[in-house]
């Protein structure tokens, strides 16, 4: 019996013709990929040097005096530009991307990357836009709970402004234009708070393909930023953790049972074993990356990065774990590659950024040295790294 199945499969496969392989094209594509990875890894080392330079040069140029305070000018002109669209991270007032590092003149609390540059908030809650080395103050957000959202593959960024009026305002900024950030709508009251986990917050969940998702007095709503058409996504959404991410129209809903993904809460499919209050959907909404703390009372435990397909299948990632190590997903480099911050083992000198292929589970370093192991850094997901 088995032979008949085999024969039928062989007959079917043998009846199909394929075009010959273009070996040169394969090799060129492979070489490009190798160069890109080497470049990114080398970029980490160079970037670390750039950080040192950025921190050291002001002290030297000041003749031993304290480094100058950031100016209050609306526009600061930085000395270099940064590439867009690649792996990036930030520490202190420096954003690092590829081989380049840019001192933006203000400490970076949270930031996001767009197709045109970067948008960050500093510890005072001022929101800045960084385009071609130019740093502009463009708005305000909550200083203790800063939070930015970006629309992947676009120039749109959103945040909640808590200081410009009596009630919080949902703001959207298109970095590709010279236009000021715009009030994007929403129904808020003056007693709404900023913290995601607080009762009754005004919270920006995400921007996905030109549609903003936020929580206001109505619950979770989706607002088309072009037409202002508004859809009530979840009237029962009570806080900023009811929706964890939105990508390609797929929403990651969170409730007391865990995380479910789908286009509505009613039809969303529960992801088995996923209990978390943060995570990242892949760009096509086909997989969800998150981290779990694995307890070990005797040795201290560790934190693991995990990826689950929306069909519920677990995708094992080849990241070595050790006592007190951590691996935390912070975004996706493309639909097949999850970005992970990894501490390595306790004796590791540096923490690294990894790109993990969810098809094979293999991980490669995208930035070898992202600061000393366990040093505080900022990653481009718009959130504080806790």
């Amino acid at each position, binding site marked *: 019996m088995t032979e*008949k199945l*085999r024969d039928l499969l062989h*007959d079917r*496969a043998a009846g199909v013709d394929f075009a010959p*392989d273009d070996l040169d094209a394969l*090799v060129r594509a492979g070489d490009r990929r190798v160069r890109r990875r080497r470049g990114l890894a080398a970029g980490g080392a160079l970037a670390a040097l750039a950080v040192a330079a950025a921190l050291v040069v002001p002290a030297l140029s000041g003749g031993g005096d304290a480094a100058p305070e950031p100016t209050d000018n609306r526009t600061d002109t930085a000395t270099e530009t940064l590439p867009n669209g690649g792996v990036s991270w930030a520490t202190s007032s420096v954003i690092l991307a590829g081989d380049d590092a840019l001192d933006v003149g203000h400490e970076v609390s949270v930031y996001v990357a767009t197709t045109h540059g970067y948008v960050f908030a500093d510890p005072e809650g001022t929101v800045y836009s960084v385009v071609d080395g130019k740093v502009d103050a463009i708005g305000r957000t909550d200083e203790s709970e800063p939070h930015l959202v970006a629309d992947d593959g676009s120039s749109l960024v959103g945040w909640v402004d808590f200081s410009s009026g009596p009630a919080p305002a949902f703001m959207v900024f298109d970095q590709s234009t010279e236009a000021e950030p715009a009030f994007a709508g929403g129904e808020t009251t003056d007693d709404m708070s900023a913290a995601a986990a607080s009762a009754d917050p005004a919270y920006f969940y995400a921007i996905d393909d030109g549609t903003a998702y936020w929580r206001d007095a109505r619950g979770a709503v989706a607002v088309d930023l072009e037409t202002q058409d508004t859809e009530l996504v979840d009237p029962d959404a009570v806080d900023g953790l009811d929706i964890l991410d939105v990508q390609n129209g797929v929403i990651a809903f969170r409730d007391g049972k865990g995380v479910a993904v789908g286009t509505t809460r009613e039809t969303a499919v529960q992801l088995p074993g996923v209990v978390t209050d943060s995570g990242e959907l892949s760009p096509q909404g086909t997989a969800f990356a998150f981290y779990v703390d694995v307890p070990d009372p005797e040795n201290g435990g560790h934190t693991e990065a995990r990826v689950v397909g929306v069909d519920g299948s677990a995708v094992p990632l080849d990241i070595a774990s050790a006592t007190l190590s951590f691996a935390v997903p912070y975004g996706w480099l493309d639909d097949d590659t999850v970005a992970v911050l990894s501490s390595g083992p306790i004796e590791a000198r540096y923490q690294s950024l990894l790109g993990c292929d969810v098809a094979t589970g293999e991980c490669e370093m995208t930035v070898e040295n992202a600061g000393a192991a366990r040093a505080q850094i900022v990653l481009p997901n718009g959130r504080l790294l806790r």
Partner: protein
Amino acid sequence: MTRRDEFAGFVAARSAALHRAAYLMVGDTSLAQDLVQEALVKTYTAWPRLRDPANAEAYCRKAITTTAISWFRRKSWSERPTEDPGAGDTVSGHADQVAQSQWLWEGLMRLPVRQRAAIVLRYYEDLTEAQTAHAMGCAVGTVKSQVAAGLTKLRDHLGHAADDLLPLADTAVNR
């Protein structure tokens, strides 16, 4: 011999077989070609650490399988296949080999991609359960359950003709 020469030898020797297996997994010539191209680029990129051509083939097969599963996860999200409840009732009239092959093919294409991949790897590539598990990036137990579920669905699709065409799930060779 340079890395390029070694890779060229591998492509010349194994590309046709890899394309055929990819075609059985995705059911579309162009998609299979794209899948194999992507897997070959990944294999070339990983070549220095693969060393042995046998490792290269296993790596490439794994890349094909897991990439196919990944692609179909995306596709299935927006294009879930519709069920045809009457399909299994009409197969008894198709006795000749061509019709059987067509019915089997249609049944195979209706399977979820992981079940289809498991059946292709086990019964076309003739891999052991352990090798299939490696190619799919899953546990051996998962391979067993995926194959059994796939054969059950194929049996339902084929109706009476399944007795002649399909192995019984519980008598499949376990290696």
